[in-house]
């Protein structure tokens, strides 16, 4: 798919970007040489800390304080960017090189309407009169597939959905017809179905306008979906570069092979899906929850009702892993929180070994509660930053009456089980990496000897290679300790790897429920089919 005949628009030669003293390493990007051609999508792939985002910022001249280009050149159609004065850079930025950010809610100004924000860019670069600008704005909104541009242009960002915001963001980036578009993880914050639409939109616009797109991502699925060429970065170094097909199907560098294998591993479902016929450990019967929030001030009396759960019923057998899959707002996390008793249901009940938890006497409830534990999504928020690991792992045990020495011995056993050594006990959470913290989070859940673990997006915040390790660890622990697991995720690929059964949720309801293999390969409900089709890079790895 590469087009060597096309001319180079952006050319980096021996580029090094220096981090401030005291950072993890001296150079965020070291000795990188890379070309971007007209009319292509070049994906820069890497895990967190690979320097890919700083590379984008360096091209835009937006490096944060203390970070600077140490050596090398960035050539944009004959203009040297690294030494360009600020006033000339301003003319270039937005007009010739535009950028789309990861989080459209923070990238858009919340107090300006969509029209005002695009208009501002046009005015700043002195484009036409008011009537002409208005025509352009409508054209752009229409081109990015936003419904009813006439009305929508007057909307504020918070009125738009995530996908619409990203479309508005893209419209803004295209306003001055740039030659180069830099997209920094533009679909990472979006749901899969929306992601698919945005990727299609970017591809279509790129081809129509013959843009050079530098697309930064961590997801090889997205790469397979959209890239013409791929550049793989690791710890600031370019480890591999080439046409997309070649890199994806025949990666040469060991690191690329590892990353590709991690993604392919996710789609390998042969090991999963076992039958379980024992009595259910946990039953959810007719769970219903409606959130009511006041809007428009104290006295207005206006209420917004969100039905998070509508009559949801599920069983989880001993040793079984049930996947709960859905997009944001589907109610899957609400259900998870209800299971661990973090919130009360409006109606319906949750039974533990056949007894409704809500009806248990207080003593009994206190005894049962720690048997259902939770592992959270964000390993940086789930551990108290002021407590040493020793305390994080023993405190709850001591509260439930375990002797301090026994609690410590248990903590040591569980640390060992999750693959960390005893030295971890005396350290604080900030001294660990994200993957290690997630292991500690799992150990904290395990010290109480639970029967059921709710894993709420437990691997979503981790890099793919770490993700694979944690998934393996969870599956291993589940088998060894005969645990049941409620695995909540937005990612069908992840669910397919660890789950025996999958329940798909949409707007508070379970729309499909069955054996993992069947749900994934022969979905019966329309929504499940859409979800499956939206998996980025589906053709490539299935």
């Amino acid at each position, binding site marked *: 798919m590469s087009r060597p005949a096309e001319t180079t628009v952006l050319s980096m030669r021996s580029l090094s970007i220096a981090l401030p003293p005291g950072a993890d390493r001296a150079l*965020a990007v070291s000795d990188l040489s890379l070309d971007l051609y007209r009319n292509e999508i070049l994906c820069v792939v890497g895990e967190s800390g690979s320097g890919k985002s700083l590379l984008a910022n360096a091209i835009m001249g937006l490096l944060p304080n203390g970070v600077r280009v140490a050596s090398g050149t960035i050539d944009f159609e004959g203009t040297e960017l690294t030494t360009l004065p600020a006033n000339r850079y301003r003319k270039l930025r937005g007009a010739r090189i535009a950028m789309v950010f990861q989080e459209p809610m923070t990238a858009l100004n919340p107090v300006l309407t969509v029209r005002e924000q695009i208009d501002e860019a046009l005015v700043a670069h002195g484009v036409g009169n008011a009537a002409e600008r208005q025509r352009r704005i409508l054209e752009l909104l229409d081109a990015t597939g936003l419904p009813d541009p006439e009305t929508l242009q007057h909307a504020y960002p918070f009125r738009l959905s995530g996908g619409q915001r990203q479309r508005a963001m893209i419209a803004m980036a295209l306003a001055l017809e740039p030659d180069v578009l830099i997209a920094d993880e533009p679909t990472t914050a979006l749901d899969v179905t929306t992601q698919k639409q945005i990727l299609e939109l970017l591809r279509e616009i790129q081809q129509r306008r013959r843009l050079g797109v530098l697309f930064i991502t961590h997801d090889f699925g997205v790469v397979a979906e959209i890239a013409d060429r791929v550049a793989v970065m690791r710890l600031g170094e370019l480890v591999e570069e080439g046409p997309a097909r070649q890199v994806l199907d025949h990666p040469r560098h060991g690191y690329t092979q590892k990353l590709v294998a991690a993604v392919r591993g996710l789609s390998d479902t042969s090991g999963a899906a076992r039958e379980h016929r024992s009595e259910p450990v946990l039953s959810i019967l007719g769970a219903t929850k409606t959130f009511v929030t006041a809007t428009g001030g104290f006295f207005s009396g206006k209420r917004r009702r969100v039905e998070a759960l509508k009559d949801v019923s599920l069983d989880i057998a001993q040793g079984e892993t049930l996947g709960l899959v859905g997009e944001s707002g589907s109610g899957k996390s609400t259900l998870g929180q209800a299971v*661990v008793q*973090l919130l009360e249901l409006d109606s319906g009940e949750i039974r533990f070994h056949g007894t409704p938890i809500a009806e248990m006497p207080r003593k009994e409830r*206190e005894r049962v509660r720690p048997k259902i534990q*939770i592992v*959270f999504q964000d390993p940086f*928020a*789930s551990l108290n*930053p002021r407590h040493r690991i020793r305390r994080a792992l023993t405190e709850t045990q001591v*509260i439930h009456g375990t002797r301090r020495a026994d609690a410590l011995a248990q903590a040591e056993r569980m640390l060992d089980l999750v693959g960390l050594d005893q030295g971890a006990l005396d350290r604080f959470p900030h001294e660990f990496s994200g993957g290690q913290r997630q292991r500690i989070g799992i150990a904290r859940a395990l010290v109480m000897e639970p029967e059921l673990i709710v894993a709420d997006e437990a691997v979503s915040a981790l890099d793919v290679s770490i993700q694979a390790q944690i998934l393996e660890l969870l599956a291993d622990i589940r088998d060894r300790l005969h645990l049941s697991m409620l695995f909540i995720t937005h990612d069908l690929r992840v669910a397919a790897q660890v789950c025996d059964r999958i329940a798909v949720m949409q707007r508070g309801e379970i729309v499909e429920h069955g054996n993992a293999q069947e749900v994934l390969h022969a979905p019966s409900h329309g929504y499940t089919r859409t979800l499956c089709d939206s998996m980025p890079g589906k053709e490539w790895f299935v």
Partner: protein
Amino acid sequence: MSDFARRFLGSRSGMIGLVLLVLLVLMALSADLLYPQDPWRMAGRPNLPPFTEGFLFGTDQLGRDVAAGIVHGARMSLMIGFASSVAAIGVGVVVGAVAGYFSGWVDDVLMRLTEFFQTIPSFMLAIVLVAIFSPSLESIVTAIAVVSWPPIARLVRAEFLSLRQRDFVKAARVGGHSRTNIIVSQILPNALSPVIVMASLMVATAILIESGLSFLGLGDRNFITWGFMIGAGRTMIRHAWWLSAIPGLAIFVTVLALNLFGQGLSDVLNPRLSRSTRT
């Protein structure tokens, strides 16, 4: 902790503030050694200018040693500053923590109460309280505490509102920890950094309020204070300027030291503002 100390040592304003504060505290502690006699006692001829033989800062209109007053006054000012701040922080933290953790109607009630105190000009309220309860050490400390706790309560409430949503708090709830345990040992330690910074600035404000009260004649007459000295000296300002200027300078240095110290603490405890962001 060593990391904390190292970073604080690296903060110049914090170190200047700390050194000044240590000197002030040493001065206050050694008041009875430096000037063993009663500072109210007439020691020499009245209105002697500074640097007269035997009187470093001169004497006032009744022949009292100004230097003795400054040294003994430091004791009062610092004591009232610290005591009232401790009381204000105690009340503020409890109110803020309860409001922030429980939210809902508890929060509504406590915050309306806080706003009630905030809408009254604080110095006026302090004057009224001291006047009603007659000027004494206890009533002054109480009055200053009563007018200073609302900002602390609001700050702690805001911290609690965001911290209570964190996963580690949810984990503690799943683990069956009691509410008291969650508030005191899970959330509070994470909310304290801004409170500590605010506290150091609050001591400075308390010293200023106390000086203001003493200046107006609402100080405790058993103890000499800087504010009283300024108030007593103001009628003589054209003949003996130092009677007002020297205690004024003492207040200025103390408040400056506390502010510098607070700024140093803030730099160290809010790493997001001082350290460059990582990518």
